[in-house]
């Protein structure tokens, strides 16, 4: 049992040699804060990487069986014509429905694009999306990270309106690489600015910025039609036969996450893609996208999906976002290994630091230990005293470390460091999550406290086994 008396004595003994204890506490504080900040960075990197992947892939993609194994060469051969029914089924499902943020679709296809103005052409990879759904997907941010869309560097690219617009079905966006290949004027922003300058000011009653932007685009579209570069998309129908062609105009030029994609990407309204690939037919898509409110719900949703598939209610195959982007797991594994390695090294150093401090203290207090034993303190009592002293060192160092880490979080987050993370497609603000990931504080602080107690075990044991008369004669 630990009485207040024991705590008082241990506390006073810790600060008996103020300088030595302060040095130890500062060492613990710095180690603890460093570890927490690193963990906070890792936590941010995980969440940021997750968000960056999810806004591109969504959580789950559903496709016709065989699409993932054999569809790469001819994705449209695996098109789904029952998108509406599947969406309804998912939304009505008692398990999946409440967890859904969005169900949408995309069509991936290949073909040849040509730009007659420059007499250039190239193969392309087409991506058809529902423009407004694509915008919703891009805004998924459950971890309340600084949204990349809010960063000035990205605003220049995204503006405040979706990449595509349902009101502009002819407008497509292409990758910068593809623009270079085709020699399409990559300075589309300049084009936009010229139009902006000649555009009437938005009417004052439109308070919603997105709505305002959309309506601006509507007025703008007529004007831009003639100014925008026009490209021709040419696709062979999945079943063979005469290729089908379609004219689109370039709305914007975008940087795509990978070089390959950037060199080939054409993004357009999914309904236009369907018309191009399946002329005269109802809407067909190659994948259905499922976005959840939170990633943590994914296992439940996957399990339910398996049930639906096994029960014959759904005839689809599916992939989760981590399967679609294996990079995420590689990243997290690497960071976990780094964190574990650092944690071990730092904890070992802390253990040695506290061990050394306590051992020195004990060596100086041998007659005192003898006195306490003579007065009737048991071996366990002596052990307790030194365990408590170790605990206090860990407690103070750890608490100060936590405070320092929180201060560090505020500093790092206010620096506003912006970069394109590995595997990312747009600028992201570097952050560390300390207060937003309290589990890190608990684990690091708890770990340090345990390490402190652990490092006190051996010196405390030694002190408790001292021979009383030798200690008194010391």
């Amino acid at each position, binding site marked *: 049992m630990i*009485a207040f*008396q024991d705590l008082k*004595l241990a506390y*006073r*003994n810790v600060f*008996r040699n103020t300088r030595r204890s302060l040095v130890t506490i500062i060492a613990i504080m710095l180690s603890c804060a460093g570890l927490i900040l690193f963990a906070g960075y890792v936590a941010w990197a995980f969440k940021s990487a997750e968000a960056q992947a999810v806004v591109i892939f969504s959580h789950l993609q559903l496709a016709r069986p065989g699409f993932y194994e054999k569809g790469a060469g001819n994705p449209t051969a695996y098109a789904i014509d029952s998108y509406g029914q599947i969406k309804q089924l998912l939304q009505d499902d008692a398990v999946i429905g409440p967890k859904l943020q969005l169900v949408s679709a995309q069509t991936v296809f290949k073909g040849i694009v040509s730009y007659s103005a420059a007499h250039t052409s190239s193969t392309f990879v087409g991506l058809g999306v529902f423009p407004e759904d694509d915008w919703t997907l891009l805004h998924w941010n459950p971890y309340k990270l600084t949204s990349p869309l809010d960063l000035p560097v990205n605003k220049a690219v995204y503006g405040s309106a979706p990449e595509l617009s349902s009101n502009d079905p002819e407008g497509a966006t292409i990758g910068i690489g593809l623009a270079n290949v085709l020699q399409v004027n990559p300075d589309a922003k300049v084009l936009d600015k010229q139009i902006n300058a000649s555009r009437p000011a938005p009417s004052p009653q439109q308070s919603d910025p997105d709505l305002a932007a959309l309506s601006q685009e509507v007025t703008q579209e007529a004007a831009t039609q003639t100014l925008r570069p026009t490209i021709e998309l040419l696709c062979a129908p999945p079943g063979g036969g005469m290729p089908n062609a379609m004219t689109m105009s370039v709305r914007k030029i975008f940087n795509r996450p990978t070089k390959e994609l950037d060199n080939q990407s054409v993004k357009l309204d999914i309904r236009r893609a369907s018309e191009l690939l399946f002329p005269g037919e109802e809407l067909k898509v190659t994948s259905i996208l499922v976005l959840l409110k939170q990633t943590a719900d994914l296992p439940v949703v996957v399990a339910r999906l398996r049930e639906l598939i096994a029960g014959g209610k759904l005839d689809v195959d599916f992939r989760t976002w981590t399967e679609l982007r294996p990079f995420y797991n590689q990243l997290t594994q690497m960071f976990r290994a780094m964190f574990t390695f650092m944690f071990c090294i730092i904890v070992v150093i802390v253990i040695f630091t506290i061990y050394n401090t306590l051992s020195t203290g004990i060596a100086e207090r041998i*007659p*005192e230990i*003898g*006195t*306490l*034993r*003579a*007065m*009737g*303190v*048991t*071996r*366990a*009592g002596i052990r307790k005293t030194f365990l408590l002293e170790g605990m206090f060192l860990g407690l103070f160092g750890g608490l100060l470390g936590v405070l320092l880490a929180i201060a560090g979080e505020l500093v790092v987050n206010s620096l506003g460091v912006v970069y394109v993370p590995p595997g990312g497609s747009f600028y992201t603000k570097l952050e560390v999550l300390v207060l937003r990931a309290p589990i890190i504080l608990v684990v690091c602080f708890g770990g340090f406290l345990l390490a402190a107690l652990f490092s006190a075990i051996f010196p405390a044991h030694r002190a408790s086994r001292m021979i*009383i*008369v030798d200690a*008194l*004669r010391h």
Partner: protein
Amino acid sequence: MSTETVASPVGASPLVVLKGVRKEYHLGKTIVVALREITLSIERGFFAAIAGPSGSGKTTLLNIIGCLDDPTAGKVFIAGQDVAEYSDNELSHFRAHKLGFIFQSFNLIPVLNVYENIEYPLRLNGTPRKNLKERTWELIEAVGLTAQSKQRPNQLSGGQRQRVAVARALVTRPDLVLADEPTANLDSETGEKVLHLMKQMRDRLGTTFLFSTHDTMMVGHADQHFTMRDGTLVQTKNGNGSAASSL
């Protein structure tokens, strides 16, 4: 006054009995014999002294009586109990309740103030919380340190420190207080005063005292005194007309 408290009840057994106590220390291959077959007894309420030159075995003898060390051979009985039968934890408990210690270099707890130092043994032996204050203050006043109660040991003079030690040793009302050369680190006048205080406390509380000294001047205060040389008792005297130990 003193003869009243000193006189032990007729037929009561002595508080301390040593029978053939021998103590050897092994230093590598050489054996140092610190005590050679010591047999003695000390009556309850006695103010007893052990005199002898440095190295004669006084500390060793007090340590054995104080249950801090065990003899190589022989028996130690305190209040009739063979202490060799006690485990380490039982000995700790025994010391906390029945014994008090006063050391040559005071050995106060430096991080505790006067009040806390004196209160410490009471907390250790589980004295009810409500009695702590009263009993601590009683001793602080008895040794005359009321004004210094909030001071830490390093703010006190040697004589004051030893008075704290006397109070600390007595606060639990032990049966026996062992004081190993309590005056050796004090000038002779202060030493006299401390010894006088100890004896005064014996008169007041009836506690048995056994103190050692290498200064033969000090033994004049004792009811009973032993003289040691090279680990043997060379002389046992009962002074002040008190009951003689039956050796």
